[in-house]
């Protein structure tokens, strides 16, 4: 009986460990500084995590499908620059759909390469990281992009506005998370992604169109990037060419922290949201107790390794790897 309970506890920790860690973490930081749990502070954290969060939601689809996407950072720079540039040329109402179309084209291109041509996703998206960065620089001529009339445009609503007192970025993040969460858990398409990522060969034999599913995961990812780019552009109304640089790995860190396996077939939208929030609150909590921003890097390192290690250890039933 005692063994059973122990197993139950271990099983629960293995499954929901990240959630438990999150709660413990929040309690510790609240004890250290009560301002941490303040509603304004929480809203601030969620708001500043929203852009990274939306990108992480899309990458969750790709990762569950058994692939990687390292191109989201430079793709986000691209969509930000494009929408800012077009804003002054053709007006915001046309600039937004145009930017979405272009970003989706990039996603479709990657989707064709990885899905239909079955190329290694790590290298393809690594190549696209570089290629899209080049594309962005060519588009902008290497200059910073700014909206001329920053006061007179409604474009700022996506990054700076709020509806019913809730900041728009939070609403967008919640909306995208809700929609993608339902798509992933309640639709045939969602189930097919798990099937393809879990065992691609078996999925193919059971009639799941593997190529198309992978293609669609990249389309979802680029859609999320477009939304993130819109939020970024709208928040700052001006941008450097490198605004998303390095975000691909932070996004991946959030997804992994949420418990998605890089081998594919596991992970959920809810857990990715938790992963994103953990990263955001770590940053905020460490700042609140008076530590400089870069301490979060070290803490994130330790947390990522511990999270994945404990996950693996629970699955194999022993702490250390059996390899000699």
């Amino acid at each position, binding site marked *: 009986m005692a063994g059973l309970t122990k197993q139950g506890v271990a099983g629960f920790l293995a499954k929901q460990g990240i959630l438990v860690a999150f709660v413990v973490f929040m309690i510790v930081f609240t004890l250290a500084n009560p301002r941490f749990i303040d509603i304004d502070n929480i809203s601030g954290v969620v708001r500043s995590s929203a852009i990274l969060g939306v990108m992480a939601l899309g990458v969750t689809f790709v990762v569950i499908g058994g692939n990687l996407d390292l191109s989201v950072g430079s793709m986000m720079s691209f969509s930000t620059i494009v929408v800012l540039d077009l804003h002054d040329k053709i007006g915001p109402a046309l600039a937004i759909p145009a930017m979405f179309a272009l970003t989706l084209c990039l996603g479709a291109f990657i989707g064709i390469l990885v899905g239909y041509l079955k*190329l290694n996703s790590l290298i393809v998206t*690594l190549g696209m990281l570089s290629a899209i960065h*080049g*594309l962005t620089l060519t588009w902008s001529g290497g200059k910073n992009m700014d909206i001329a009339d920053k006061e007179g445009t409604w474009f700022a609503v996506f990054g700076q506005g709020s509806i019913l007192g809730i900041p728009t970025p939070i609403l967008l993040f919640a909306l995208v998370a809700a929609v993608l969460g339902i798509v992933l858990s309640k639709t045939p398409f969602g189930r097919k992604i798990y099937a393809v990522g879990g065992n691609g060969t078996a999925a193919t034999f059971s009639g799941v169109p593997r190529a198309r599913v992978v293609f669609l995961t990249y389309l979802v990812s680029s859609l999320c990037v477009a939304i993130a780019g819109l939020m970024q552009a709208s928040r700052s109304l001006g941008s450097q060419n490198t605004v998303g640089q390095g975000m691909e790995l932070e996004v991946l860190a959030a997804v992994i922290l949420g418990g998605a396996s890089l081998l594919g077939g596991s992970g959920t939208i809810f857990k990715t949201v938790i992963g994103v929030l953990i990263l955001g609150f770590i940053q905020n909590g460490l700042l609140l107790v008076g530590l400089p921003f870069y301490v979060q890097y070290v803490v*994130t390192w330790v947390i*990522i390794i511990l999270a994945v290690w404990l996950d693996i250890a629970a699955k194999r039933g022993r702490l250390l790897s059996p390899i000699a």
Partner: protein
Amino acid sequence: MTKETLFKQGAIWAFIAVELAFFTIAGDFLSTSDKSFMDFDNMLLLLKQSAPIGIIAVGMTIIMINGNIDLSVGAVFALAAVVMLDSMTWPFMAALGDWAIPLAWLFALTTGMVLGAINGFIVWKTGVDAFIVTLGSMLGYRGLVFMYNGEQPTSHLNWTLVDFAEAQFLGLHTATWFFLVCVLVLWLVMTRTVHGRNAYAIGNNREAAVNAGIKVGPHILLNFVIIGFLAALSAVVFYSESGSVNPNDGMLYELWAITAVVLGGTKLMGGYGSIISTLGGVIAIQLLRKGLGHIGADTETVNLVIGLILIAVLILDRQLNQKGKQELRT
């Protein structure tokens, strides 16, 4: 050597030859300078400029042959540079005069090896995928760089060191020599030693390697120590000349190094690849950078071209492999 491996290993050098021919001819029409692209000094400079990424890429090759990956090299590079430049200002080091230089190098290289060993040890003992381990330490080591000296650049110019770094021996720059020696030594290690042979075996089929009685863990650990050492060596070579490091230096170096390695034909899955081909990959990328500049293309297009070439190589490689498999069947 079979015809196929000869073809595969020759491909990158053929690509370099095409690049040289293209930029030389196109340069005659498009270049604004009257110097030819194949100018000897220009080529020497090219080798020198490829050294920092090249030295890291050599290490990345053995990691990838071994079936792992290291995303933390850029951060290791920065931390080693900070340690080297900062250590020369320590009081007891200042008293040593120029003898401080080898000691500072030793500190930097040790830093690199320790950081590499931490990665390797975690990969070995926890069984967590190297991609995740080094993704984490990429952040963590970068954090250590910042913690060392805040957001300030770390600077220390030592003129003896600068002279050494800028010297030319038999025509080649110091950095080039370091690069070439790394290539030679690691090529010998991978082709002539037990460690090299086992690294290929582990990358090719880890399970089979375990069954064959190969101690997988120590080999993985050793490879991570080597790449840590090389990332630090790359920093030593580069910052001896420049004398100042920003906490953000070396970012995205991991991606450039991986690009060069893949361009050279090394497989991400492990078990296949060669140090010499990586040398080709590094030179090909640097040639592309310089060449596009030479014919007056915007520097912005370099990223675009390199990215597309990487993808093209992948498609080509797949076509060739499929053809090979079909020939086997018939």
